[in-house]
């Protein structure tokens, strides 16, 4: 889990870098599209934090999905949707890692859940844990069973899929 860095220059650089990482299925994003994606990630992060403060995790996930305004564009799972989901996952990870506050795995997973829902890409948020040698909990996102964010290793057991 990357430590957050509050360096504003880092955030600015990451906005550009994260957006550049996220090309659309149809091709590279324009500068305006990159900026929109960065804003979307930050907006989703703020929304996810609010949702978690107000409701249990299950309701927060449902809220992040239900508030999606875009009609689904993808009916199921294809290599293209998996590729798109992973690109978005990388963008979310890179951008949130530079923000202050708790932007670890659960925050990343919630943000990515919203981004994927807005694009009509089905995904599950998985929460897992391991008991030893020391307790650790981890959250990640899967699309059609394939991890989109870094999953827990074999020492982790799945607790719940949301």
């Amino acid at each position, binding site marked *: 889990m990357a430590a957050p860095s509050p360096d504003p220059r880092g955030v600015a650089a990451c906005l550009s870098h994260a957006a550049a990482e996220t090309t659309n299925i149809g091709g590279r994003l324009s500068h305006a599209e990159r900026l929109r994606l960065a804003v979307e990630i930050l907006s989703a992060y703020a929304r996810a934090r609010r949702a978690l403060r107000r409701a249990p995790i299950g309701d927060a996930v449902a809220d992040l999905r239900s508030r999606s305004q875009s009609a689904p564009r993808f009916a199921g799972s294809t290599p293209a949707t998996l590729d798109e989901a992973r690109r978005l996952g990388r963008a979310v990870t890179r951008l949130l890692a530079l923000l202050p506050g708790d932007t670890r795995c659960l925050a990343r997973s919630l943000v990515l859940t919203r981004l994927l829902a807005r694009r009509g890409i089905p995904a599950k948020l998985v929460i897992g844990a*391991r008991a030893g040698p020391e307790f650790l909990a981890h959250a990640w996102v899967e699309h059609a069973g394939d991890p989109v964010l870094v999953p827990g290793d074999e020492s982790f057991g799945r607790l719940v899929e949301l």
Partner: protein
Amino acid sequence: MTTPDTVTDTSTLLAAKVNVPQHVVYRSFPSETVVLNLQTGKYHGLNATAGRMLEALERAACVREAAVALSESYERTQELVEQDLCELCRALLERGLIEADGGPQP
């Protein structure tokens, strides 16, 4: 439904059916059982024995029935196991990790 306040009576608790609510998930590992309360976001750890007790409680029709099964496998008296089970149940009820239904109503 039996609440934590009403289950201080051991006989009531022993007759109750224990359920794990939908907002609670758990998984057993070799060293302990990890329990997650999705409503509070809190993780709880149960040692191997308590984890096995929780599984027995969920399977059994009532706490007393779980005590019978566990007393056989652990070779302990039923009374001793009932005492331990009730203690565990109260701790889990206080944390909202189980619900107890079907016991005699006060």
